[in-house]
């Protein structure tokens, strides 16, 4: 057990009527980390978080917080606090009483309580709002009150269950940045669960990608994006193109793949279970695709594709093209004036550096 780790779990399992909602999850979160668990709805995130908070018990495995085994410690005795999906502010209490609730349970005297409530409100950017009712606040303000209610207790670990889900897009963008700043300012270890990959990417130091109750990959956001370890991560984190074909040859790091129309493409091998002749998927990001005329970088791989449409979306503009072997591809259109205009049904060559493409065995 690493002594500087705030949270560490080994082989956690939680079954509901035979089906494992959390299936042998192990994790290790160093102190002061913003740790996100990212996964589609129903993959077991909330179940995992509930076990960390103590609302539920694992069927197997252990939970350690700062080296202390927590399995049998009830929620009110764990050095852990949780921001709930719907915040769960007490509607019968003022903002100040909501924040003071935990302090009062710890029998902190009134004067001290008031001081700490005022301090934490200041820190989350809501000075002087003690007397308000939570119902009078905006969504973003309520969010901050829910955070302050936990942070005022100085927990070892703060758990957050998709707290930004209820906010509108603009506010969510703003809160993402703010949450990250708050986490750095307080230095508290955050365990944040979300199904929104952009939230996880922007805020986190480490992201665990969860699928069907298991962790597929745990890595910093950039590594997750550049070096996805499984086809699921490659497809789930960020936009990606998937090109299917048969593996015909392996040359060192690179795989040569025959598409269904017979043309050949290349990409870097990302898993060690590939067999020549087997079905594989090649993943290449839209921004790694180069729209090339004839001038083609010698080392590049590529295919001919037919333009279907241009999707203008500011900095995120793309063309949709139909490539060899019925593969639909998206390529980013640079908005610096360098991209040519395309006519529908024009044929272009889409090229890429094989080192940026990742090849996995296809899972059928």
């Amino acid at each position, binding site marked *: 057990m690493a002594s500087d780790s705030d949270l560490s779990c080994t082989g956690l399992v939680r079954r509901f009527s035979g089906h494992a909602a959390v299936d042998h999850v192990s994790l290790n979160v160093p102190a002061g980390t913003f740790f996100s668990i990212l996964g589609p709805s129903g993959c077991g995130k909330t179940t995992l978080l509930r076990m960390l*908070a103590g609302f539920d018990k694992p069927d197997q495995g252990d939970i350690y917080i700062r080296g202390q085994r927590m399995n049998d410690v009830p929620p*009110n005795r764990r050095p852990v*606090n*949780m921001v709930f999906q719907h915040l*769960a502010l007490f509607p019968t209490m003022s903002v100040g009483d909501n924040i003071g609730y935990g302090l009062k349970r710890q029998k902190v005297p*009134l004067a001290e309580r008031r001081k700490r409530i005022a301090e934490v409100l200041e820190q989350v950017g809501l000075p002087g709002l003690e007397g308000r009712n939570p119902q009078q606040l905006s969504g973003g303000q309520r969010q901050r009150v829910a955070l302050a209610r936990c942070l005022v207790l100085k927990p070892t670990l703060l758990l957050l269950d998709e707290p930004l889900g209820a906010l509108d897009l603009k506010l969510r963008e703003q809160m993402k940045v703010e949450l990250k700043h708050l986490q750095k300012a307080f230095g508290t270890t955050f365990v944040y669960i979300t199904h929104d990959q952009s939230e996880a990417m922007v805020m986190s130091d480490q992201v665990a990608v969860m699928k069907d109750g298991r962790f597929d990959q745990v890595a910093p956001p950039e590594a997750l994006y550049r070096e996805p370890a499984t086809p699921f991560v490659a497809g789930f984190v960020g936009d990606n193109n998937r090109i299917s074909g048969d593996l015909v040859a392996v040359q060192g790091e690179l795989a040569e793949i025959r598409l269904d129309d017979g043309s050949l493409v290349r990409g870097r091998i990302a898993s060690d279970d590939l067999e020549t002749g087997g079905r594989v998927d090649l993943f290449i990001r839209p921004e790694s695709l180069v729209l090339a005329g004839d001038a083609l970088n010698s080392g590049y791989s590529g295919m001919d594709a037919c333009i279907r449409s241009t999707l203008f979306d500011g900095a995120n503009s793309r063309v949709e093209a139909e490539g060899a072997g019925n593969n639909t591809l998206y390529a980013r259109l640079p908005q610096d004036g360098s991209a040519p205009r395309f006519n529908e049904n024009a044929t272009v060559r889409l090229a890429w550096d094989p080192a940026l493409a990742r090849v996995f065995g296809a899972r059928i």
Partner: protein
Amino acid sequence: MRNLMQQPFRTAVLVLVWGWLLFLVLAPNLLVVGASVMTRSPGTFISLPLTLDAYRQLFDPLYLEVFLHSLYMAAVTTTVCLLIGYPFAWSLSKVGKQRQVLLIFLLIVPFWTNSLVRTYALKLILATNGLLNSALMSLGWIDEPVQMLYTEGAVVIGLVYLLLPFMILPLYSVFEDLREDLLRASHDLGAGRFSTFIHVIVPMTLPGVLAGIMLVLLPAMGLFFVPDILGGSRNLLVGNVIKNQFLDARNWPFGAAASIMLTLAMAFLMFAHRLSKRRIGEDGV
């Protein structure tokens, strides 16, 4: 177009509602207020001059005693209803949705039978040679029939039996609104079960408790047929006094004054209920 279609309907509804309130609620109540400040008259029931004699009579020790005893029985009834209804409503809100519908249905079924009939049924159970005594004797728990009918207890049992659903339903609705997450949040912030109950559950369900009290306490003082059937001559309710003044003693002003007292008590409870819904911070910070 839509407005044109809606306007006549809206007007009709408004006229109906206001008409209802004016002729069936406001007018009768004004008549009662009027009657309460007039003089008793053998021939025409009420006559001039205006006087507050009826209200003075309310404080006659004889009647004051009836009122207090009535209030006491109503309070016991309400307390028993609350003690049974609170946990009942709580667990009702926790069972599965389908079973919830069934249980609420069962709670409402007795309303389909006239309450007078149900009170007589209760009499059959509580009577000296009734079902309960027979059952207890055949079980060997008692040797002689116990006097249950015509006691204060019988009246309270009758009132609780008739009024319990009125306590359970508003409580059920506040427990339904009590999200599980709030209890978890309380637990998570360091509160134990008892603390959570006192600081979260009680304040959240208080409006339901007060609504239940309102729906039980006042009616409990008015249900005159329960003491008539189960209570004998000593366990009277305010309702019995009012009924007697109008139908037997023919003292309309006094009966009217007594019923106005009940209305005022109700208004006071409603005011308290409103206050409780206003959410006030406990530290005042």
